[in-house]
């Protein structure tokens, strides 16, 4: 059923009794052309683009829990394409463009809100680094502006300009960046893929892979064997766990990133702001809560929860940047499992197993990458060729040294 104001009104008149399920709950078929492991944003987007862009609809998405139970439902909903390096910026800018047309593409309101993303800087050195980045964005056709202190003040007057340990001297601003209602992304992609014939199968964890003389032939699951010509892994924080079943040893560690939301308040913050001298970034949800986060806890973990020091560190960053939030209360905190790669950039590539494809290593970048990740992964699965925008996201870059290290931190995941 097409969504529109009209459909809302007609259904309202009939007591909303005629709405149909957003996606079917089919039993798994014995085999598919493609089985996507992981019913998160990336997996569902991959299914949507496989069907829509490549006409491949004999596809199943299998999810161990409920749809969107992973990072796509646990992030701070920020979208932006303010990347520095050639391997990254074109990809994230393409993702930005897909966000801009997403709702019309999916006929689902994901509340793509281009309210702007502001990264403040505190020193000439930081400014120069941001200028280098902003110019890289411009070179790639993305939008970027350099703001001076007064322009920042105009955007966020309640930021501490008077008594700050690290005074704000300006910022790099991407007006097209913003936020997206994360759950809606899941449901919108799921609905669209389902309408195109993709089987979405929840509560169906992969327990193993059937590999015959170097070629994948299917997935063992809690609900039995599912044959597949091609299998695509899109399991973020579970990458190593699932990959190991197929004999993959990956340049990835699983870490937890905590996020927080305050009680709902009337509008305070109209843009997304990121602190350059501490670990704090924040936006205000349409419901009214300030949604914010900071740095990862920094140790390998599979528990979707973090610890107190990071909670305090984030709060200190928040108070240092916006001393007006002291009396606002944190309502809830949560943690997502990040697939932190060794150079801080993702992987979209074939594996040593024929027909087995891998998508992971998203670090902090997973949510904003969702559309482009699905787009490029679908392209790889359908054509066997890396999409130009994802050409650098290959396993072999670690051996060759052509790493994509935005932060220049080296092979230490918790520093990216």
């Amino acid at each position, binding site marked *: 059923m097409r969504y529109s104001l009209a459909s809302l009104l007609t259904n309202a008149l009939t007591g909303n009794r005629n709405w149909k399920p957003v996606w079917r709950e089919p039993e798994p078929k014995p085999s598919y052309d493609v089985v996507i492991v992981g019913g998160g944003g990336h997996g569902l987007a991959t299914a949507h683009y496989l069907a829509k862009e490549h006409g491949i609809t004999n596809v199943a998405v299998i999810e161990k829990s409920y749809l969107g139970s992973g990072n796509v439902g646990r992030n701070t909903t920020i979208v932006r394409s303010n990347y520095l390096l050639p391997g990254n910026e074109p990809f994230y800018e393409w993702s930005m463009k897909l966000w801009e047309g997403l709702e019309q593409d999916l006929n689902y309101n994901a509340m793509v809100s281009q309210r702007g993303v502001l990264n403040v800087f505190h020193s000439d050195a930081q400014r120069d680094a941001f200028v280098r980045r902003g110019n890289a964005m411009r070179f790639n056709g993305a939008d970027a502006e350099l703001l001076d202190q007064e322009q920042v003040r105009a955007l966020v007057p309640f930021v501490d300009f008077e008594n700050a340990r690290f005074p704000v001297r300006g910022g790099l601003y991407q007006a097209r960046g913003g936020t997206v209602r994360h759950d809606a992304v899941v449901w919108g992609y799921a609905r669209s893929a389902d309408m195109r014939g993709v089987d979405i199968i929840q509560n169906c964890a992969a327990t193993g892979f059937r590999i015959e003389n170097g070629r994948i032939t299917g997935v063992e699951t809690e609900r039995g064997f599912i044959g597949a010509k091609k299998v695509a892994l899109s399991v973020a924080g579970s990458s190593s766990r699932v990959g190991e079943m197929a004999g993959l040893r990956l340049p990835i560690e699983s870490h937890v990133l905590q996020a927080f939301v305050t009680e709902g308040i009337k509008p305070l913050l109209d843009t997304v702001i990121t602190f350059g001298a501490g670990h704090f970034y924040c936006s205000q949800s349409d419901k009214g809560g300030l949604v914010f986060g900071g740095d990862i806890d920094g140790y390998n973990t599979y528990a979707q929860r973090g610890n107190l020091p990071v909670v305090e560190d984030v709060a200190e960053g928040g108070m240092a940047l916006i001393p007006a939030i002291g009396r606002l209360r944190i309502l809830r905190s949560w943690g997502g499992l990040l697939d932190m790669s060794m150079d801080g950039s993702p992987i979209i590539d074939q594996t040593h197993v024929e027909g087995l494809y891998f998508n992971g290593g998203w670090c902090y970048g997973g949510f904003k990458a969702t559309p482009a990740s699905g787009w490029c992964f679908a392209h790889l699965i359908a054509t066997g060729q890396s999409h130009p925008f994802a050409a650098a996201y290959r396993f072999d870059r*670690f051996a060759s040294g052509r790493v994509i290290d935005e932060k220049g931190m080296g092979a230490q995941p918790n520093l990216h």
Partner: protein
Amino acid sequence: MRITCPYCGARNLEEFTYRGDATVKRPDSLDESATEAWVDYVYLRKNPAGLHKEFWQHTGGCHAWLEVTRDTTTHEIVAVELASKGAEHKER
């Protein structure tokens, strides 16, 4: 999370700095044929769900590098040793 430093005793997480997998061994850098070993050492990780032997440094305390054995699904710590253990006999 609290880690019991063999020297300082139990301390809060914020006193420790994480480095990661402590099972990897640094290959011989003069062996030009060791490319695979080096790629594995620098970039590849088992990243297990369960017991994980990992390097931490007690940077907020005695600066000792530690080998901590910790369950990555529960954060339970089952063993902590000084990474330099055995240094004394190595010198003989």
